């Protein structure tokens, strides 16, 4: 089987990129040959990653026209068994190319992650969505939202396709490089962009300022143009010395941070899925999330983590204090979280591969 993957990016940091990498890894596991066209990757970013003989990745450095031309040429040269589109922004041009007669009958799949499909879908995209074979929704909320936003979209075409922990995370931290952080800390891993304030970091900083344990610190892994604002918040709350912003860390360092934290806290209001929760669970970090949208699929209250109302600072403060003060609760959440991403858990890579196989091996169904 040969699949064409058309992605916005593959090798940057972020949930969508991680989903793409996991999907590619699943294809490799299934012996599927993959041609990947990645809009934003560059030859340099691709070159930094190990090559697989079954995978051919080309990057276009953000040049849209070059990307579209390459998609056209690729579909002109070769017939694919499946087309996989990684982002709704690519849907309309790719479907237009396919309908030129190049791949009219090739089953086409789109992944709908989160915020990119929640906030309104143009009429052209709505028409395109009604025509493709399947829309893979990473969470129940995304599916519900698509049904609300796209009248007439056949529910049978929507499939829940949750993220999973990629194979690359399936190792243990080496325990080095931890001197950069304090002994006792909670951890957040996220983008720090002004437009992403829904991630709830301000709420975490506010809650930390109220926690009785004044030796507890907060480590924030991520970068973006909002770091100065967040540092200002910490300063104004008088806890700047307890918040540590780590701009970029290696995968090894991140694993180590997950493994050693008292809790992983990301009370985001608009998480499409929240793959960082899975990573935290894998490394045994008790998770605190907001009871909103995609996170509801990932975190089960009192089983794999604690859920609080988005923006509820007193509740978040109480949740942090509970986890810090109660070793038995910490242990229970650790075990519950770990079970979700290992063995027969719902979010293991093996389950992801199974879902991918079912999807690809199902009787080919063309676009409408």
């Amino acid at each position, binding site marked *: 089987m040969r699949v064409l993957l058309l992605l916005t990016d593959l090798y940057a940091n972020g949930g969508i990129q991680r989903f793409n990498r996991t999907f590619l890894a699943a294809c490799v596991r299934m012996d599927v040959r993959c041609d990947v066209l990645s809009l934003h990757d560059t030859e340099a970013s691709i070159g930094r990653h190990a090559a697989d003989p079954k995978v051919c990745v080309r990057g276009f450095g953000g040049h849209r026209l070059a990307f579209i031309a390459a998609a056209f040429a690729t579909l002109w040269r070769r017939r694919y068994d499946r087309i996989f589109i990684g982002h709704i922004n690519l849907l309309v041009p790719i479907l237009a190319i396919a309908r030129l007669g190049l791949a009219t009958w090739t089953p086409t799949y789109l992944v709908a992650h989160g915020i990119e499909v929640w906030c309104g879908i143009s009429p052209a995209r709505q028409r395109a969505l009604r025509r493709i074979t399947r829309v893979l929704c990473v969470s129940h909320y995304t599916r519900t939202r698509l049904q609300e936003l796209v009248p007439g979209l056949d529910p049978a075409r929507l499939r829940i396709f949750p993220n999973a922990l990629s194979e690359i995370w399936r190792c243990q931290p080496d325990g080095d490089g931890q001197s950069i952080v304090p002994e006792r800390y909670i951890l957040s891993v996220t983008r720090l962009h002004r437009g992403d304030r829904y991630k709830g970091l301000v709420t975490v900083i506010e809650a930390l300022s109220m926690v009785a344990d*004044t030796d507890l610190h907060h480590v924030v892994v991520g970068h973006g143009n909002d770091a100065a604002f967040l540092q200002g918040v910490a300063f104004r709350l008088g806890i700047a010395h307890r918040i540590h912003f780590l701009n970029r860390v290696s995968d090894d360092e991140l694993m180590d941070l997950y493994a050693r934290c008292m809790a992983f806290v990301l009370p985001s209001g608009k998480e499409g899925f929240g793959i960082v929760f899975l990573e935290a669970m894998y490394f045994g970090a008790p998770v605190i999330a907001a009871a909103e949208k995609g996170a509801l699929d990932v975190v089960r209250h009192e089983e794999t983590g604690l859920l609080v109302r988005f923006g509820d600072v007193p509740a978040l403060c109480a949740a942090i204090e509970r986890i810090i003060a109660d070793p038995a609760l910490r242990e229970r959440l650790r075990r519950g979280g770990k079970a979700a991403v290992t063995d027969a858990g719902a979010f293991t890579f093996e389950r992801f591969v199974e879902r991918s196989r079912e999807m690809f091996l199902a009787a080919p169904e063309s676009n409408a």
Partner: protein
Amino acid sequence: MCGILGLFDPGGIEQDLFTFSAALDRLKRRGPDDEGLWHDPFIQLGHRRLAIVDLSPAGHQPMVSGDRRYVIVFNGEIYNHRELRRRLDPPGGWASQSDTETLLEAYRAWGPGCLDLLNGMFAFAIWDREERRVFLARDRMGVKPLYLGERGGRFAFGSRPGAVTRLLQQDPLDFEPGALRAYLELGYVPAPLSFHRHVRKLPPAHYAIVDARGERVVRYWDFRCVAPDPSMRRRTETELAEELEALLHASVRERLMSDVPLGAFLSGGVDSALVVAAMKAVGVEHPRTFTINFREAAFDEGLAAAAAARHLGVDHVHETVTVDSLLELLPEYAAEYDEPFADSSAFPTMALARLARRHVTVALTGDGADEIFGGYHYYPLIERLRRTLEWSPLARAAVGTVARALPAHRAKLLAGALRQPDVVDLFNYLRSVGKDYAPLLDADVLRATASSTDWFAQYASSFAVDLSPAETAMRLDAGFTLPELFLQKVDVATMAFSLEARCPMTDYRLVEWAMRLPVEYKLRGSTGKFLLKRVLFKYLPEAHVRRPKMGFGVPIAAWLRGPLAEWARELVYDESVMSRLPLERQRVRALLEDQRSGRREAHPLLWTVLMLLYFVRMHGARVESPGATRRAVA
């Protein structure tokens, strides 16, 4: 209305009761009926009482618990205290009928958790003699003020910042640069800032615990994250209006708890009329209501208030004054506000409080309705501008450039609005009094301090997801403008005349309900407070309810060109005042000249600056007697 004061030193306190009494004297007007002091080796506590509930000496404060472990000083009212008493069983039985004792026992029984059970307006401190710990708390919406200060290891708190600075022996003009910037931008100082360095406000819905290890400030209630409830749309408008009315009646009924005469402010508007209508509906046969009428028709709501009073059948009291006569209150205004404060509606509010105090000791007001039910004119505007926030920066810049070139003031405002990147910035732009304050302020202060946008953005980060722009603006107003500007104004203006104000619209159950109410029941086209008005249709003719909103305005621009022109000029050119502030003098003077010459209408910002300068003069030099100042401004 009372005043509380305290000084705590974990290392042991120097017993300077003379200084403490002098500081407590600054609270005299808050509580003219009684004074109390209590101290031990670590703390001094003081209280000034305006007796409202249980007028007997049993309500004296500071109040010590039966087991002598806890001591409380309390300002405010706990409206559900009788209900709480039924759940409490103090070891030695009840010693009084006062809500102070109920609060003390509630804290003994439930600790900080007691705050979740309180319905009221309050600021209090409880000293735990066993743990050597002070517990301080402020009500959910910030009706009652509470200032905290720390200097040299000593911790002070009180109902007025001036009393706290005095206890800390701090120069009242040792100001906090961030507060100065916020004041110039907004016309008030937002919590947790206070104008004074080392002093800050305890924000609404927070408590603080102070002991030898330091201080911890904790939020105990949060309306910000309450999401609009789509299921409310399944109810009819009539059902929602009935629900709202029932909540309002419950709130008003609880606020009638008083052993002294009680009345209400009544303007020609929706909010106060609703409160008065609710008073009648819950059984007050002849509520006494109060209005200030102005001889100048442009500012007068007296006729509308009288018409509302007639329809509602209340005992209406009014006083007619000239707008210019309010200037007599300027020295009082500056003396009572321990921070610079630029809302000119404080003048008529003070005049109204003065009138009401001649007849009653407690007055209900309609404050809070505009913020939680969508009464301000800019909410529909923000809703209309929501689409422009989705435009590309280039498109916004292009339209903004065209709008800026147009001569109309509104076009220039639109141009400014289009420059704002998101709804929080847009709110800040529309709400700020000094849109071009920055050039007046020293560049170093600007660099070192946060803009009010940062405060708003920080606050808004906890708002429920997917709020409309207008709802975002309402919640910012409910979190900042209401407690820091309007409730503070009402507190200080009524305090100046020993009157207690109660605000039924700030009842937390009503606020939570309003937060759940979908936005279309607040704004309908350009109509604000849609559902609230619907409730009022039951009591007043529709034409009266639909009158355009008027507000409590005074003619600042005309004053600055007329009776206050010389006073303003003298202030702006007073080197002894200007030298105390990091302001760009030439630019401040240019602002004044622009206003005087009519080249530019800059009175909101200019008034803000003048109130700052006047504050510095009053609190810095302390050379003018109120009489001399009155002559100067007249």
